[in-house]
């Protein structure tokens, strides 16, 4: 049983990361947009939902937050998703018309600004202090069922991953995705064929950011408490690694990549503390992620589940 519990917790984290990777795949895999603000969308989803679903805390020495709404969790989840999408839209409007490098720099900087705001605007977010007592959805109902809460939440998260996967697969394989793919390959062609490229890019950015926001809400309602240190840029880079390893352009690949990354980190937890360099384990883990990322790009640029033939055809001109 206990091993199952561990599997459930790791599985829930993997599910949340999968949603993040699905959003990123819409940006990069489908549309070719360089998004480095994923941690910010994740954070906005988490904080929005947490603030909306908790009551205003009692005044205390540190409880500086002066807002709280105590709304149902489902409201928080929807609002967190929407607000993250809106933020994605706003960030993208500044630079989506320009070349990809600019978008990369702007998104990376914007994400840090978002974290700075969360950190400093304590009246809204509790600032550096932990925003606590976030309710878990349907906790009392689940308590009457013969399964543990983790089982319920695991199923909930993966049901949402499944639903999101199906929706995004259809979007990607439908006419909308076709335009995104065209934009990824060549903006000018899409323009010449009458596609409003900027609008499509903004939509893609907003939708992907929204899914990251959804992931944030699910995470917040699972871990009881959130703080700004949970949303460092390294999350964005890990999700990039997941998408590349899984295979850019493939939603199944995005999920597989996320699961691989999460389980890689968990497996190294079983290494006993007595082996050499165990104190450096967390750094070695991240170094390994760096090496794997570069190796995948070199040996298997299409990733685990990406489409090699497409990639081959796509670069046949040596461009």
């Amino acid at each position: 049983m206990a091993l199952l519990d561990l599997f459930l917790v790791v599985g829930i984290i993997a599910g949340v990361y999968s949603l993040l990777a699905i959003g990123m795949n819409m940006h990069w895999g489908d549309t070719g947009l360089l998004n480095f603000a994923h941690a910010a969308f994740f954070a906005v989803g988490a904080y929005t939902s947490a603030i909306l679903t908790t009551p205003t805390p009692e005044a205390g020495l540190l409880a500086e937050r002066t807002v709280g709404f105590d709304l149902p969790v489902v409201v928080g989840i929807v609002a967190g998703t929407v607000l993250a999408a809106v933020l994605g839209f706003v960030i993208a409007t500044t630079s989506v018309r320009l070349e990809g490098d600019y978008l990369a720099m702007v998104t990376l900087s914007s994400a840090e600004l978002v974290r700075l705001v969360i950190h400093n605007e304590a009246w809204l977010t509790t600032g550096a202090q932990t925003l606590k007592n976030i309710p878990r959805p349907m906790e009392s109902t689940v308590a009457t069922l013969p399964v543990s809460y983790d089982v319920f939440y695991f199923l909930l998260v993966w049901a949402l991953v499944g639903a999101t996967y199906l929706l995004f697969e259809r979007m990607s394989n439908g006419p909308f995705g076709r335009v995104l793919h065209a934009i990824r390959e060549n903006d000018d062609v899409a323009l010449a064929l009458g596609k409003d490229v900027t609008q499509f890019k903004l939509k893609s950015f907003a939708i992907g950011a929204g899914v990251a926001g959804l992931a944030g809400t699910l995470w917040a309602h699972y871990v009881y408490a959130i703080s700004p240190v949970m949303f460092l840029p390294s999350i964005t880079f890990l999700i990039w690694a997941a998408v590349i390893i899984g295979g850019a352009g493939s939603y199944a690949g995005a999920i597989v990549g996320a699961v691989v990354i999460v389980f890689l980190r968990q497996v190294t937890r079983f290494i006993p503390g007595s082996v050499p360099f165990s104190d450096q384990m967390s750094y070695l883990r991240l170094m390994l992620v760096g090496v794997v990322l570069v190796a995948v790009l070199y040996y298997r640029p299409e990733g685990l589940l990406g489409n090699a033939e497409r990639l081959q055809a796509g670069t046949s001109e040596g461009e």
Partner: protein
Amino acid sequence: MTEGEMTEGEMTEGEMTEGGSSGGSSSDPIPVGTLAPFSQGLGWVGPNAARGRDVALQSINEELVLGREVEINEQDTETTPQAAVSGFTTLDQAGVVAMLGPSSSVIPNLFQPISDAGLPTLSVSAGTIQMNDVGGPDAYLWRTVPSDSIAGRAQGQYALDQGFESMAVSYKDDKGSQSFSASVADYFTGQGGSQVADVPLAIETDSYRSEVQEIVDSEPDVISMTAGTEVSALFMQNYIEAGADIPLFLGNDVLTPDFIERVGADVMAESPVFGQAPAPGPAFDQFEQRHRDLHGEAPGTFGAAGYDAMNLIALAAVRGGAADRETITQNINPVARPDGTEVSTFADGKSELEAGNEINYQGASNPQDFNEFGDPVGPFAVLEVSDASWAELTTFSADELTT
């Protein structure tokens, strides 16, 4: 290797469900967890605490607990709740009977899981006042360092005793430092002092020159600056550069020889710098000596707290006669109750308990007398730098700080 580990975990589990009493097998080691930050922001806390813990562990494994050795399973929280949650579940799954370590950055995420798992946990570093009303046997949670509100009183009281009337408060913009600073300011202003500036110090920045300027411009009698080593060092550098000579209080975390060395012994001695720390517990000197013997260096911040936490867990198991979660939970307070025979090592405690006596564990970081929320109350010392080390100026007793 991974597989081997997993099998072991399952065996422990099987044994617990079958026998009900874990005292059953006399040879298997007792699994105890350490869940602390070994990397990222508070990455220096875990190693310090673990070295202190190992000093305790050395004699525990010579004497044995109920005839068994204690085996440590160490998990890194990476200072972030994500990693802390999966680290916690890993320990829970491995069947550890008690756990020590987690810092204030992740503790709020663990309140509920700890109580769900019924896994007794002793934090060795979380001073946060968010924990003031959480803890004790019902919550399975203790800490072996005093609350910031007590430390804050010590600092505030000393400032008042010196006749300082106005204070500028500055702090690293993170959870722990904010909590500490808020306590100082709250006490100081509550006793009639005035606060003239409130200056947060951003975490990842390259200078605090403008912040120092802002503080100096507010013309305080005294500055209270709370931060970890990194921010404190940079603040000190900018404070000295600016030629400021306003008395400066530092936070608990930097009262180490290492910090003096980092900033420079001469400037630290010349500047009007003070600090306050829990007055070392009765067992500190012998702990320090054994720490030097084992590791070849003096204990770092939270080392003594790690030592105490390990001893308390082991003694609780001895007193209760079983190494399981519930027994340890029910016996943490009893081994530290003030009316027992005072002991300061595991060996002494064990022999007293085996002789049928009650004990009062006197720790290295602190006497470890817990209040109803699992917080230790104890005396605090005010320190200044002389001869490249921290020297005691005065001490406030536990009574002075809690009334």
